[in-house]
Structures are given as structure tokens and as C-alpha cells.
């Protein structure tokens, strides 16, 4: 079980760091929370700047799992009620993810390029 997570994490390492070594900017911290409520990722689409740390929190009694389509970032473990999961997005792009046990639940994270 854990081996699989490590494998995914290693695979995705060039794109995403599990724990960000540097403090995220205030703008990144502000709008980068996703609530899982009533079998929906809220918001379903979230736009964040490069380097943002995104936090998912499960507010349902049902467990959920955050899994990137195409392993673009590491999968979460099973999130029980109140559990959190974080991933940091260091490259611009569109990241689609879903719940691997409730696959009708789909969300998107758009990581925008830094302003110049």
C-alpha cells in the first residue's frame, strides 16, 4: 500500500513536491483550499499561482481519495472525515483529478503562470 504511494510520489516529483520547503506566498495560501462536501470537490475548478500549496479537506462521513488522472501529482491516502491532504503545484498547467472510489467526483486545478 505504502510502496505504491511512494512510487507515485517519485514519479511525480519533477512536477510536484509533497512538502514545499519554502513558505508559500500569501496569495497562494489565500484561495487554495478545496472542501470535499456532499460528494463534490468545492470549488470544482480552482485557479492557483505557480508554487501554490493546495489543501483538500474531507467534510463528508464517506471517505474520499484525491487521485490525479495520469498521475500528474501524488494520490492521497483514503481521507476519513476531517482529514486533510496537501499537494504543491510548481508547474503551470491544468490538473484534472477525481476520487478513485467515487469516480463521478471530478475536479480541476489550473496552475497559472507567474505575472511578469
Amino acid at each position, binding site marked *: *500500500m505504502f510502496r*505504491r*504511494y511512494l512510487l507515485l510520489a517519485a514519479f511525480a516529483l519533477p512536477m510536484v513536491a509533497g512538502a514545499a520547503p519554502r513558505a508559500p506566498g500569501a496569495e497562494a495560501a489565500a484561495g487554495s483550499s478545496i472542501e470535499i*462536501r*456532499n*460528494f*463534490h470537490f468545492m470549488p470544482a475548478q480552482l485557479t492557483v499561482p505557480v508554487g501554490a500549496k493546495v489543501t483538500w479537506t474531507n*467534510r*463528508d*462521513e*464517506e*471517505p474520499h*481519495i484525491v487521485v490525479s*488522472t495520469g498521475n500528474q501529482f501524488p*494520490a492521497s*491516502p*483514503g481521507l*476519513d*472525515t476531517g482529514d486533510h491532504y496537501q499537494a504543491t503545484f510548481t508547474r503551470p498547467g491544468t490538473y*484534472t*483529478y*477525481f476520487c*478513485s*472510489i*467515487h*469516480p*463521478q*467526483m*471530478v475536479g480541476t486545478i489550473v496552475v497559472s503562470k507567474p505575472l511578469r
Partner: protein
Amino acid sequence: MNDRHDDEKIPDRRRFLECMAWAGAGALWMMKGGVAHAGMLGSGNAAADATFRFVQISDSHIGFHQAPNPDPVATLRETIARINAQPQRPDFIVHTGDLTHLSKPEQFDTVKQILGEAKVDQVFCIPGEHDVIGDNGKAYFAHFGGGGVSGGGWHSFDHHGVHFISLVNVLNLQAGGLGFLGTEQLAWLQQDVAGLSASTPIVVFAHMPMWSLYPQWGWGTQDSAQALALLKRFGSVTVLNGHIHQIQRQVEGQVTFYTARSTAYPQPAPGRAPAPGPLKDLPAGQLHKYIGSRDVRHVRGSQAIAVTDIALG
């Protein structure tokens, strides 16, 4: 978290409670020549007429610890004790998935221990999506076997002339999809039934519903139509599943679908709540009316399968 929904939910919940009440004592469903007959438990003579019987239990969610059932270990134990107390021993017990809530080793250990208390020759299980969290079923198969050559867990067996097929529709789920069987399993199914006569009664076990019950809540299997097409030539097909923690029945041609109660907690009727999940605000002391087991009998000298849902209290 749900307080703000309570006012909206009350009328729906009442409808759900009323709807379930008639079935609470144990409703008998039977197919005769493609026509469903309903009766109350005890009104027929099903026990005497049965070639054999088995019991289906489902959705025990060991590791769940919230309302309306903080102790699903106790309710699973009670369910097994009730089965053990019946005068006639079932030939086997099938558990149609979600044995655990979070696929944790200690949860699998607990389920295995409790199922071991059943006084039957065989208990077998198929996985639910809660049993394959994080490892694609590795821990589940390590505890309960059934991985087989394919590793996917599907299998079949024959018992008193009835062909039983266990399908696994909770692995390799795809973003935006529903339950999923996959091409490998469908190819296996085609092979599996190829040599059977069309008069062989077929009983299919699966965790998620094998018809489009309520896709908005994920209650369906995206490639179930392909599996059912392979079973179309058979005169009697009975599909028994779990996942939605309530009794629902559907007839499509010669195929009858039955979803079972949970041994842990009920879920709302389709669309009657903002989302699926535990029906938390049951009247005090009423949980046992919403959970239970299912008795299944093969009717002697016929293709008919009789299904009786029995509440725990």
C-alpha cells in the same frame, strides 16, 4: 456540517421512512415466469419448497464510527448471530462488499474474525470500493483470497444446478465514470457462460448496482450492459448487489436486480438528500429496522430464485 440542510431534509426523510416501513418485517420477492410476486415473510411456503438457500449480507463498513451506527462491529455480530439462530443452516453466506470502511489491515482482521463466527460451511466475499482503497485490492485479496490468476477477484461456481458468478466492479475506476468491469473481466465472463444451457439459472453477485440505478450518485456500472448482453439468452438471471444500503428492485426482461441492506447503516433513497452517505438522523432506537440480511432460496423444480429481506430488528 449538515445542520443547514436539516430543514430541507425532513420531508424527504419521512417519505423514506414510510417507504421502508412496509418492507421492515421482511418482504418476499419471487420471480415466476418473468413476473414478480410480492408477499410478506411467512405467508408462503418457500422454506419447504426450496432446493437450497443461502444468505447475502453486505456493506458492514467495519471502521465506521459515526451516527447512526457508532458500532458496526456489534451489528455485524448480531447479524451473524441471527443467521446462526435459524433452524435451517444456509449452504453459504456471501458478503457483497464494503466489509471495511477504509481498507485498513485491522479492519480486515476484525471482519474476518466475525465472519468466522458464522455456522456455515462457507463464507465468501467480493470487494466493495471501500475494500480496495489505496492499493487496488492488494490487502483485501491477501485477507480473503479470490485474486485468482487474473488478480481481479472474479470467479464462478455451480451449486445444485445454479451457476453463480461473482463480478468485481470496484477496481480501476475511471474519472467521471461509475462502477467498472473492464474488458478482461468481460472476456472471462463470455468464456465462463459459453458452455451453459439457456435453462441454467444464473445468480450474479456484484458490489455496485449492475443497472443504471442513480448515476448522479455513482449508483451504476458503466459497462454493465456488456455483461448483461452476455447473459441475455438465459431464462432466469438474478443479480444481487450491495453498495446503496437499501432495498431496491428492478426487472429488465429475464433479469431481476436486487440491492441489499447494509449490516451497518442505511443511505437515503436516490435523490432524496444532497448526497449519498449515512442516513444519520434516524429515530432513536430504530437503526435495526434499516439494516439486516437477505435470505435467498432456489425454488425446487424451477428456475425461480426467491429473495427475502430480513431487518435486524
